């Protein structure tokens, strides 16, 4: 009898193990190539052909760090990134709660929740940050919530894998804002966007290096030499990109080089300091909070309600270009109550006939569609300094400007998905009825039937 029992016992264990093996094997085989159907109306979980193509052609590994807390934004992004990882083994995603693991966030300069960071796995200086306001937006027309995660993520993957790292040079040597003392946050923010940032003394380097993708000029206090000017002009003519920031914190504008350069496109930095009694930061009329113009640099900030604070600004005047390939656009303007104070010595600033009447322009972009040249001119450089960059959306404005200059903005087009769920319209009475039917009537009916059956049987 014991033998028989043992025989059947081991047979049983064996057959259970075999079945388990078959089931696990079957599941593993299926896991290699997921088969799924997206049954949502808006095809919420289906990637576009464009993304599929990008993922198919991916030649380098991409690491994605998503700094999210447990909320609906995380679910949304996780679902989307799951689609990416299902399609490509080269994408590795890791979700990180920035509160529990602040060191990694710090390492990559992540300061906000719901930020997704894309890194080239081989070379993590090739990286791109996608902010939450990049992916969660609201339609201007309908006010609907829109999720454009796929467009942003796919572009970020393209950027970190295909585009070579962009070299940004901060020009030094003319008493510009000191890059090592005052621009550390600005520099690390640029590095966070995948730039390689170095100082450049044009004279010592004998010109602007060939690998320069962007030059940054932050408020020089002495003039550039003719040779240096030639180097800059030469660079721009060949399609160079320049980020020029000229604030008023040092008093009157004494040096001419910048205006000499800008005069080529009829743009001029005024010798004034902007006073805006109407739109400003904490009642300080000298710290204007400009309005955004319709521009790629600012439209996301506008919808995300991120303001820009520009203390000690100069105004910029410009003439519309007559040439068809040159486009000049303003993207920051003051209120019409503002004026450009030209008297730097007056204790009590007030508008007089020497001053420049508002609304004033604080930022313009110049672009040449023929050569690819792009210039961003800001009447402010304090914004980029460690003290002021953290205020409101300053850092985002600067990064958006740099990315616009270097064409790192979204080039692919994938239509975003509307997040809106159908809403239920009910009168109060209908709502009451629904509650009563679903919560009270249905269970009660079932219990009454049960009670009837039970007691009738007992009575029998």
């Amino acid at each position, binding site marked *: 009898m014991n033998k028989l029992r043992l025989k*059947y016992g081991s047979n049983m264990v064996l057959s259970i193990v075999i079945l388990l093996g078959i089931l696990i094997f079957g599941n593993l085989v299926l896991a290699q190539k997921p088969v*799924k159907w997206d049954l*949502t109306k808006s095809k919420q979980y289906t990637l576009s052909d464009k993304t599929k193509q990008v993922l198919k052609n991916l030649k380098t590994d991409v690491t994605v760090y998503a700094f999210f807390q447990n909320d609906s934004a995380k679910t949304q992004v996780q679902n989307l990134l799951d689609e990416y990882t299902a399609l490509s083994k080269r994408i590795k995603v890791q979700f990180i709660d920035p509160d529990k693991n602040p060191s990694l966030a710090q390492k990559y300069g992540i300061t906000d929740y719901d930020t997704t960071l894309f890194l080239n796995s081989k070379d993590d200086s090739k990286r791109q940050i996608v902010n939450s306001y990049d992916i969660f937006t609201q339609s201007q027309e309908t006010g609907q919530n829109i999720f454009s995660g796929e467009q942003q993520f796919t572009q970020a993957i393209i950027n970190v894998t295909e585009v070579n790292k962009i070299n940004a040079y901060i020009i030094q040597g003319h008493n510009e804002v000191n890059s090592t003392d005052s621009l550390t946050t600005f520099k690390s923010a640029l590095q966070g966007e995948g730039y390689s940032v170095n100082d450049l003394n044009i004279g010592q380097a004998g010109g602007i290096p060939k690998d320069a993708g962007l030059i940054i000029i932050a408020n020089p206090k002495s003039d550039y030499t003719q040779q240096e000017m030639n180097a800059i002009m030469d660079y721009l003519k060949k399609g160079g990109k320049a980020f020029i920031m000229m604030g008023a914190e040092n008093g009157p504008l004494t040096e001419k080089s910048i205006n000499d350069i800008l005069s080529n496109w009829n743009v001029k930095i005024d010798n004034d300091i902007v006073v805006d009694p109407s739109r400003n930061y904490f009642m300080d009329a000298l710290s204007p909070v400009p309005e955004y113009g319709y521009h790629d640099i600012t439209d996301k900030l506008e919808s995300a309600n991120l303001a820009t604070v520009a203390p000690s600004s100069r105004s910029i005047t410009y003439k519309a270009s007559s040439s068809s390939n040159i486009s000049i656009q303003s993207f920051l303007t003051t209120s019409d109550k503002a004026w450009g104070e030209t008297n730097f010595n007056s204790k009590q600033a007030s508008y007089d006939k020497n001053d420049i009447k508002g609304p004033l322009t604080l930022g313009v972009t110049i672009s040449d569609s023929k050569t690819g040249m792009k210039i961003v001119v800001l009447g402010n450089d304090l914004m980029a300094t460690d003290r002021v960059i953290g205020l409101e959306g300053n850092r985002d404005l600067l990064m958006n400007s740099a990315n616009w200059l270097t064409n790192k903005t979204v080039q692919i087009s994938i239509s975003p998905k509307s997040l809106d769920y159908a809403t*239920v319209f009910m009168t109060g009475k209908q709502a009451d009825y629904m509650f009563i039917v679903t919560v009270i009537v249905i269970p009660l009916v079932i219990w009454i039937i049960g009670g009837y059956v039970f007691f009738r049987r007992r009575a029998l």
Partner: protein
Amino acid sequence: MKMLTIYKRELKSYFLSPLAYVLVGFLLLISGYFFATFVLSTQYALMSPVFGNMVFVFMFVSPILTMRLISEEMKNGTDQLLMTSPLRITDMVLGKYFAALTVYTLSLVISLIYPLYLKIYSTPDFGPILTGYIGTFLMGAAFIAIGIFASSLTENQLIAGVIGFSILLLFWIVSWLGDVFQGTAKNIVDNISLLQRFTNFQNGVLSLNDVVFYLSVIIFFVFVTIMVVDKRRWS
């Protein structure tokens, strides 16, 4: 056909006793409460949160539904009768399994009044509702398979219920480990978690992998139940 005989007998015993009515009514009370409060407070024509709550409640209800299925036969000694009868054990287990599944399915069918309400007062996206029902059904079917397995282990109904509930709870909370582990361990934990698999259904994505996973769990536990009962026959 022998399976059908058992199935009918079990179903009869469910509906001639108050058990099925009490459980179905309770399940629908809680689901109805979640449905009504969610829809009325958010005004969204959505059911995905309701499905999550339905399976959560059924996790507590299913051990009660299944605990007596096999243990009662053992206690009354009727299992001897069944086993010596020409009925195959497979027929017996499957008949009982499908009877319990039918009770559960009935409550799902009654709950179709929720999407009906959404249809009347809104234009809901029926894709996620359909997948949600498929997922809720599969999840419940897996719970019942685990419950019937627990019932085959002991002739004490209450202990069977507790064992069943413990296994379910373990399957449920194993996904929490996913937040603790990283890499492969996390992958494994995520993949065996019944809960983790459920999100796709809730979102409106019907994945063959998920369906096969639930079917695997069901097949495994039903098979082990048959083995356990079969073993008793020889001991």
